[in-house]
């Protein structure tokens, strides 16, 4: 009788919980009558009929979590994730004394994490990520002897990470990314002997990585990225067994310690956007299980070690925005799994090695802003998966190889700011997926190929600052997605009538050519300012004081 009474109370408590939800009409319509154990999302104990689990995730529920939830003394699991719940987490949650799993993630809950949570001695999983929670992380969470998963990511929590939390021997997962946490990393952090996931990305932590970091041997993921951490990367980091080491977006200085090259368990190594200096240790080439290597945005000097060509599982290699010198090692051609190679904004010189064409899975190759010379290798056409090729702002010479037109998937082709000569191969017009073509600031001659009319997806064409002549081909009028066309500073002749049907065009510069005739005003062509047409002595416009001599002739 006592048991039945308690179960009946549970039904009443559930109806109270329902009352403070909104938007329940469609999803909780069966929450009425006596048999609360048959209600949607309610799971009862087989013997006592007390509510053991409440799973109402992803039902678009709004409103608040009622304090009545505290009356459900037998609840083992509450899952309210992915709703639109607002208000605070009720203090009464601390009365659900049997609870093991509490998941309120992906809602709009605000207020503090109630201290009463620390009364839940059976709690194993606490997931409150993606809410609007404020205040400090209660240090009393350290009193939860069974807590294995603590995920408070993507809230507005502030203050320091309570040091006591690190003395939890059963904690396996600590997710604190995307808050406003301050203070330093405690030397105690490696007391977490069971922890495999430590993530404090995107907070405001300061200070250095503690020397004790080498004791964190259970960590598989260590993500300290986007904080304000300083100092050098300690040698002891080499004792970690991590698969992911993310230190990007801090203020780390000094060299990349060679010991990192011994960390064969690394799958992801991200040291990007710090102030690291000195050379790239050649021993990093030993990392034969690493898929992602990010070192961009530092102050790295010296050459690219040819040994990086031994990283046989590498997919991403980003070395851009450093001060690297020397040539691109041909050994990089051994990276047949490479997907993204970014060497932009260094001081690399010498030719682009032919071997790069052996990176058959390369999707994006960016060598912008170096001092590369020689010609563009014809063999690049073997990179059939490539969607983006950027060789701009180098010292490249010779012609545009016609073979580039065989890289069928190319979205972006940028060869601007080089010393490229010869005509534009008409076959470039067969790159039907091309969105952006930039050949500006070279020494190209000849004319604009009529085949450009086949570039049906193209949004931007920049051929400015070359020695191009001839007419603007009529076929350009077929380019209905073209938003930007820059042809300034060439020797282009004829009139502009072919552009009248480019209705998407919003940036046009054809200044300083030899165009003639009248700039039309129909088809909204007057949307372009006179600046677009300057420096064409034979061109008459709709604006004042234009082409006085030719109107005189009329």
């Amino acid at each position, binding site marked *: 009788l006592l048991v039945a009474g308690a179960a009946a109370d549970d039904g009443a408590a559930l109806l109270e919980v329902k009352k403070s939800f909104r938007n329940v009409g469609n999803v909780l319509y069966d929450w009425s009558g006596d048999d609360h154990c048959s209600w949607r999302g309610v799971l009862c104990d087989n013997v006592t009929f007390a509510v053991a689990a409440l799973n109402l995730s992803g039902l678009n529920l709004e409103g608040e979590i009622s304090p009545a939830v505290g009356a459900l003394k037998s609840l083992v699991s509450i899952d309210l994730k992915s709703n639109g719940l607002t208000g605070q987490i009720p203090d009464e949650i601390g009365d659900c004394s049997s609870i093991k799993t509490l998941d309120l993630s992906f809602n709009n809950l605000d207020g503090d994490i109630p201290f009463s949570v620390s009364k839940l001695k059976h709690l194993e999983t606490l997931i409150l990520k993606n809410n609007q929670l404020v205040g400090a992380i209660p240090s009393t969470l350290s009193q939860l002897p069974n807590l294995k998963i603590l995920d408070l990511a993507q809230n507005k929590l502030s203050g320091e990470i309570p040091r006591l939390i690190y003395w939890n021997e059963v904690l396996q997962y600590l*997710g604190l990314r995307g808050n406003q946490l301050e203070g330093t990393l405690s030397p105690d952090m490696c007391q977490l002997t069971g922890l*495999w996931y430590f993530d404090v990305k995107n907070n405001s932590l300061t200070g250095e990585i503690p020397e004790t970091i080498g004791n964190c041997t259970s960590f598989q993921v260590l993500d300290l990225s986007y904080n304000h951490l300083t100092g050098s990367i300690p040698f002891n980091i*080499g004792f970690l067994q991590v698969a992911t080491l993310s230190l990007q977006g801090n203020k780390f200085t000094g060299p990349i310690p060679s010991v990192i090259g011994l960390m064969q368990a690394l799958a992801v190594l991200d040291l990007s956007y710090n102030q690291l200096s000195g050379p790239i240790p050649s021993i990093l080439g030993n990392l034969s299980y690493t898929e992602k290597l990010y070192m961009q945005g530092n102050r790295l000097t010296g050459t690219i070690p040819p040994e990086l060509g031994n990283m046989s599982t590498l997919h991403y290699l980003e070395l851009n925005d450093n001060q690297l010198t020397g040539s691109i090692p041909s050994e990089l051609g051994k990276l047949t799994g490479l997907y993204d190679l970014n060497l932009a904004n260094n001081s690399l010189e010498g030719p682009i090695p032919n071997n790069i064409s052996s990176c058959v899975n390369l999707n994006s190759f960016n060598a912008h802003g170096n001092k590369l010379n020689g010609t563009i290798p014809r063999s690049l056409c073997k990179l059939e998966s490539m969607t983006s090729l950027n060789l701009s702002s180098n010292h490249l010479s010779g012609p545009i190889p016609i073979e580039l037109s065989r890289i069928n998937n190319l979205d972006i082709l940028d060869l601007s700011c080089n010393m490229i000569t010869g005509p534009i191969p008409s076959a470039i017009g067969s790159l039907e997926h091309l969105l952006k073509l930039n050949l500006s600031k070279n020494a190209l001659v000849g004319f604009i190929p009529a085949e450009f009319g086949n570039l049906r997806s193209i949004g931007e064409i920049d051929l400015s600052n070359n020695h191009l002549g001839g007419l603007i081909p009529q076929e350009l009028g077929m380019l209905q997605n073209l938003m930007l066309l820059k042809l300034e500073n060439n020797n282009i002749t004829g009139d502009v009538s072919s552009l009248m049907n480019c209705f998407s065009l919003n940036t046009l510069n054809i200044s300083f050519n030899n165009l003639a005739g009248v700039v039309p005003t129909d088809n909204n062509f007057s949307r372009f300012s006179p600046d677009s047409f300057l420096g064409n002595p034979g061109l008459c416009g709709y604006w004042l004081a234009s082409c006085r001599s030719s109107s005189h002739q009329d």
Partner: protein
Amino acid sequence: EARRRELVGPGSSPPTCRSRCGRCHPCRPVHVAIQPGVSFPLEYYPEAWRCKCGDRLFMP
């Protein structure tokens, strides 16, 4: 002495996964992505090692 230093020194290697998949064979180390929450499209997920047998994953 050199051997001892090798044992206690820095460095790591992928898990061997020996007898980590219960009775399931073969048991091999793989990378898995850990989804930490809502991520921005250009961000990568952190990765960890797991032992894999068939479609099942086990802690190394």
